[in-house]
């Protein structure tokens, strides 16, 4: 069959008629930030500490959920509008303000265009001045511990653990290759705490590992961490 001119016109007409705009643009305002305490970043386990954003006024009341990265940062794409930010109960190695009714406090966030919002929290402890070094198949960490919450909500240290892993994800839940822990009761001096761990044989061979120190607070599930360090040994 020969293609006639009016066939092409017809085809073009149909095509242009289908060119209607979608009803919504995808969300484009980026809300980013990190967990901080007086400017210091709070490091947590990857994908374990969740946060929730509620946007009231749209019928159903489900949350927009996300989790913090290892270095305590988060990012989420949102529509412009008013949101409430909160962290679910019993999550995170820090205190989150609770209202008198026992409900979790929320942080009002007005999103208009991309912006940065750091989340100020009060951790139970801080791991300061961490120095992680490696030599002859042993990774050693030296660090100071600082008890931040000392009032009635204070909690003891259950254990301090040095984790190493082949990849940059370093924690108990990330199939770490080795770890050493010190029970909280064995820590007498909070300064210059030292832990070392032997590096097992890695296949395929690599001459570096990623390491960080985790602190487990008694009766709190999530651990607080020092920043991830790449160590040659």
């Amino acid at each position, binding site marked *: 069959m020969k293609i006639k001119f009016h066939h092409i016109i017809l085809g073009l007409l149909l095509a242009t008629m289908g060119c209607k705009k979608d009803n919504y643009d995808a969300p484009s305002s980026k809300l980013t930030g990190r967990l901080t305490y007086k400017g210091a970043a709070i490091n947590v386990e990857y994908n374990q500490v969740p946060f929730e954003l509620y946007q009231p006024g749209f019928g*159903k*009341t*489900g*949350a927009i959920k996300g989790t913090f990265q290892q270095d305590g940062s988060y990012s989420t794409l949102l529509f412009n509008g008013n949101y409430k930010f909160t962290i*679910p*109960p*019993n*999550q995170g190695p820090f205190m989150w303000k609770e209202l008198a009714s*026992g409900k979790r406090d929320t942080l009002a966030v007005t999103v208009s265009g991309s912006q940065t919002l750091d989340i100020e929290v009060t951790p139970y402890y801080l791991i300061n001045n961490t120095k992680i070094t490696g030599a002859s198949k042993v990774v050693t960490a030296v660090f100071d511990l600082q008890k931040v919450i000392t009032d009635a909500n204070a909690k003891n240290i259950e254990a301090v653990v040095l984790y190493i892993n082949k990849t940059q994800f370093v924690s*108990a*839940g*990330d*199939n*770490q290759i080795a770890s050493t822990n010190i029970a909280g009761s064995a820590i007498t001096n909070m300064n210059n705490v030292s832990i070392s761990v032997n590096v097992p044989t890695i296949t395929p061979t690599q001459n570096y590992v990623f390491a960080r120190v985790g602190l487990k607070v008694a*009766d709190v*599930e999530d651990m607080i961490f020092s920043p991830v360090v790449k160590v040659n040994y």
Partner: protein
Amino acid sequence: MKKISIITMLAISVVAGSCRKDSSFLDVPPKQVLPTDLAFSDPALVLSILGDLYDRQRDFSSLDGYPSREYPQSPNGDREPGWRTFADFSEAFPSENGSSFLVQRTGWGYGEWAIWDYGYIRDLNLFIQRATAATKLTEGDKARFIAEARFLRANYYFEMVKRMGGVPLITDPLAYDYSGNVTPLQRPRAKESEVYDFIISEAEAIKSILPADVNQKSRATKAAALAMEARAALYAGSIAKYGATTPQVSLPGNEVGIPSTQANAYYTKALSASQEIINGSAGSYQLYKVLPDLSDNFAAIFLDKSSVNQEAIFVEDFKANGGKVHGFTTNDQPFSMSDEGLDAGRLNPSLNLVEAFEKLDNTYAPIATKDAGGNPVYYTNQLDAFAGRDARLAGTVLLPNGLFKGKRTEVFAGYQLGDGTVISSGDATITQDVPGLGKNIQVVGKDGPVNGLEFRTQTGFYIRKYLDPTVGSGRRGRGSDVNFIRYRYAEVLLNAAEAAFELGQTGTALGYINQVRSRAGLTTPLAALTFDRIVHERRVELAFEGHTLYDMKRWRLATRVWDGAQMSVADLVSNIGSATKHNTQPFGLWPYKYFNPGNPNSGKWIFKEVKPSAVTGANRFQIGNYYSQIGDDILSANPKIVKQPNQ
């Protein structure tokens, strides 16, 4: 003329045919749908309605699996295969590559195990309402049908409270009045203790209506109601007692968590309900002691459907060639005796479980693979390594060289030579040369183990519990009709023992637990009882019966046993019998043939503990896993529902 008369007659008949009353023309009773009053007029019809309700019960483990009816729905809408519902928690290894996620994940999502089937509750409530209103049934039938539906409803609430904590207790079929206002339909969550109280009071109310008949196993009986009551009261008691160790797992309104002051009251109820079965007032239930070989006897509890079996109390029944069968045997039969070619060997019990079975002198010991000097232990027969142990081991697990359907399994991982060299291959059909023995020798067993070779064992063990030796039961077309036992007498004894122990009546508790143990060949009675002993006894007696998760949850042991730490062989063989022993990764025990001509041990077997290569994750049970997350659609549809503690 003739034509005219025919047309006239036709016209008359058409006109006359339409001369009917509107009511008789329009009100035609449906021929495919039975109206309620008709359906509830005949006991056989009522039973068929009830049959559907029986079929929709939920268990944790199920031989025929379950459709993903629960919340959240599986993304593919697929069916959870029966064998896989037994395979988690490091008690077994899944030898099917598509199911490796079970041993590769590092924990469970907070939504795992959630169910929220109020459609089923509504159907049960409607059934109760309609049966109550029925006029043409005899009083006896009517009372029994209603009691059965109340049993199913209580049992489903039990299943929900185990997973979700307190849920809305709805006991009447809610009706919407189309007013636009749904507030009357939104019910808040009951306290966790209120749900348990409901289950206990329902069981007390219906137990005397239900028949006390030991041969009635697939329909609710007095003993089934009492067994449910005993288990529910025991769960509530232990949540009250051990929940105190995890204060984070509670809500201010007690929708989750039971105050510890209520523990003794619940334990007392659990003990008295169990004793009502034990003293015979619900029928002459007793432990199954029929076959002389104690392991065969233990396996036969799950296979024997005759009236000789007075141990099974309430079962999910199946019938071959009758439309209700399951593929458990097809999926899990030993590869070399498979009725269905490549369909076999998926569920491989782990060495972790095998080592938990104690020796006949009531002590714990790992399977000896090395002597004190670190040299391998040589066995003439593979089965010698497992000799002198609890008879339930060989009754639950099909050991290497074990007998099934008159044949023995062939499980070996390779030849080990005198210099320590191991000769192995990727499959039984791939031969190798063994120096001194010959060329092209088969070097691995037809039944495995080879890492990653699915449908053969990868731990060295096959499952024996529920495995059907009937001819043809391994075929996909025929399937197996072995029962799934939901409540059995041995569990009632263990429930009674635990309740008595927690109440300080150790003598009574020992009497019950020793009955269960002597049936398994452990004839030296225990003289002292500890909490760890009770945990251990339930693990070995009730392995693969869907108790593991709920037991670990109610004792609040789950976070300690499944703590996410990787396991080594040293961890595996130490602390056996401790309630808090880590159990995060399934291990295997691989037999090797020792070949060293001139050595007296040549031709004997040695064993090695192996972590199958697919096992990369480690089970990590988090605080938020104790009670499954409630879905956002439920929360948003009903603002009165409070969230779970960690949600």
